[in-house]
């Protein structure tokens, strides 16, 4: 059983696991999917790409930002059977640009910490925009593959 204690204005409750076994009766307000104030993920409700998504890290804002945006936009709106097949030129340009800044875009082949949701630039800590240079981008629902490599090689 839980114990309750008061220390002045502060209340202290100790609970066991079984105390919290029953589902909560607390009511939460329903989320509005179109709330204009909310922070969005990679794809906005309108279908556009949210370039400011923390998940992209510094990709859209670094020296190769323009090339990256061109390439990724092309891919995102591609209606080809093999998605992005007409975007090779843009990806090539992007890769060329990235090779000029090896410090920012380390050419890692092993993609050590490539996770679905990149933890690179979250809502909080700002980290480097180190990324893999793989031209193939995964489905737009998941985030851009990123590697959290060290900033300086």
């Amino acid at each position, binding site marked *: *059983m*839980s*114990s309750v*204690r008061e*220390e*002045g*204005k*502060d*209340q*202290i*409750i*100790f*609970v*066991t*696991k*079984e*105390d*919290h*076994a*029953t*589902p*909560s*009766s*607390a*009511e*939460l*307000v329903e989320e509005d999917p179109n709330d*204009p*104030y*909310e*922070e969005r993920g990679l794809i906005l409700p309108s279908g556009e790409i949210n*370039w*400011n998504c923390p998940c992209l890290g*510094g990709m*859209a*804002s*670094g*020296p190769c*930002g*323009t090339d990256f945006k061109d390439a990724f936009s092309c891919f995102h709106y591609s209606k080809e059977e093999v998605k992005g097949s007409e975007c090779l030129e843009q990806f090539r340009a992007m890769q060329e640009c990235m090779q000029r*800044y090896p*410090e*920012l875009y380390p050419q890692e082949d092993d993609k050590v*910490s490539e996770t679905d*949701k990149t*933890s*690179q*630039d*979250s*809502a*909080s*800590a*700002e*980290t*480097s*925009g180190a990324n893999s240079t793989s031209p193939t981008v995964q489905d737009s629902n998941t985030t851009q593959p990123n590697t*959290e490599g*060290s*900033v*300086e090689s």
Partner: protein
Amino acid sequence: MLKCRNVWKKLAPLARASSTVCRQNVRRVGLPNGRIPRVPVAHMSTGPTGGGGENHLYVLLVGAACLGGGIYAYQTIKGDQQRYQDRINEISSRSQKAATEEPTTPIQSEPPAVPEPETQAAPSPEEPSPPVPDVELAAAPSETAELPPGVDSTPASLKVPSHTPYLLIGGGTASFAAARSIRARDPGAKVLIVTDEPDLPYMRPPLSKELWFSDDPSVTETLRFKQWNGKERSIYFQPASFYINPEELDSAENGGVAVLTGKKVVQMDVRGNKVKLDDETEISYDKCLIATGGVPRNLQVIERAGEEVTQKTTLFRKIEDFKSLDKVTRNIKSVTIIGGGFLGSELACALGRRSHESDLEVIQMYPEKGNMGKVLPEYLSNWTTEKVKREGVKVITEALVKSVTCKDDKLEIQLKDGRLVKTDHIVAAVGLEPNVDLAKSAGLEVDSDFGGYRVNAELQARSNIWVAGDAACFYDIRLGRRRVEHHDHAVVSGRLAGENMTGANKPYWHQSMFWSDLGPDVGYEAIGIVDSSLPTVGVFAKATAKDTPKAATEQSGTGIRSESETEDTATSPVASSTPAPAMEQHKDDYGKGVIFYLRDKVVVGIILWNVFNRMPIARKIIKDGEEHADLNEVAKLFNIHED
């Protein structure tokens, strides 16, 4: 001068010659009678005496000689003068040519080099103008060589663009976040960051935590730290290659972010949309962000105590403070930290850890009853204080400093209750004074309650001016007007300001969080208004070995804790299937739990105590702003017994 000397040199032989001639002639003339050979010359018209005719002759000769000499001398001088003049003309024309060539050379030499803050910061010494006329002129060729890559007054305006579409004042976390946001939303945007620090934008939290735990002896140089998950990174947000040089900003085809270090904005002209730097340069802008952060506060008793004391006092905020404190603490026997808040406690724990290896005595003193006394409810603050003591810190609570003096190279801190503390060095962590230096010249409002520039919910101060980070006193739609001094807030507000500078018009809505670690065993994440003067409700379970900050980050595979919380998605509460036997009540063991801070029965702040990856739920509860009858039910949403 040389001219005269040369002239004299040339004249001297002549003079001598003419003088000897004269003398000789005179002698000759003077030698009368018959000894002198007859010169077959034309008959003189007059001849007073016998030698008179000869006299005249010689007078004539002498006269002619002198005249000839004089003419020769005159011509020589004239010629010399002419030659001199020509030479001077040539030199000046040469120096002009060099001056026009010179500006191009620095531009050529700089792009390959990493932007060096020192060269930009150096005030331009006056160009050695018209070189001293050196008739020898051997030095002339070397003079032109000296001119480039000089710091000339003319190229100074080439280094700094006179106009930038986006101007960010301050080079910290908020500024960098805004720069990134602007670049993401405005294709090809040109962003200029102006900072009075010599460093590129960096993150502050590791300066009082991770950097102190590093095993690398060169950590003060590399500023790299190992995160709990083993990954190493630099405190700089981006390496230098991410940025472009300020002088290239105008011409950059795809724009970029340029950082102008070592320059301070001293004046702001809001009507004219321009600012003035401390070196008199003016930069005009379209949109401006003020992210000037703040300056550490100091105790008045220390400020008045004299130089001997202030020299042994550190106000901790920047990289240079970290470097100097690291150095100092290696060579002293005792350090005292004044202040019991986030920074003070973190530094105390970090130095306390160090005291295990060396014989450094670490003392922490503050007016409150326990560490984080203004943040945590009393019972938790007491518990935390015990933990801090276990990290090797001598904690002196309810300590009010009356005076500080320096005796025999040691500091003596006299407390108001009579206690005396002797130490070698003081670290004052007593708060931050927001930097509002530009308020007067810009005509911006300063908040009297919280300090900082007063801005609206969209972080806007005036038409084209936004403020973010520590210096912004903003209107939070949910929680009311406030000013927040945390890292995540700087990121969130910086990003929001950047969005609004590019036309988004969004209010501050995504609630920022903060975190603190007091050693590897105690860590918490918090969100909203966490003020110990508010009534609180704490719901606790017993902590297992799995519930430590270290374990949490290891598990989620992330670095700084604040990253992990966005990694997580809100999980629905899972009913536990196996009922556990009734647990013993560990009354004073607050292992892990959730603490709610209430204002008028509404939850305005939440602390997740040794419970991680649940920030989205906490954020949701605050966003809702609902009155909850039973907070134990709300606590269930956090699933504190699970990992």
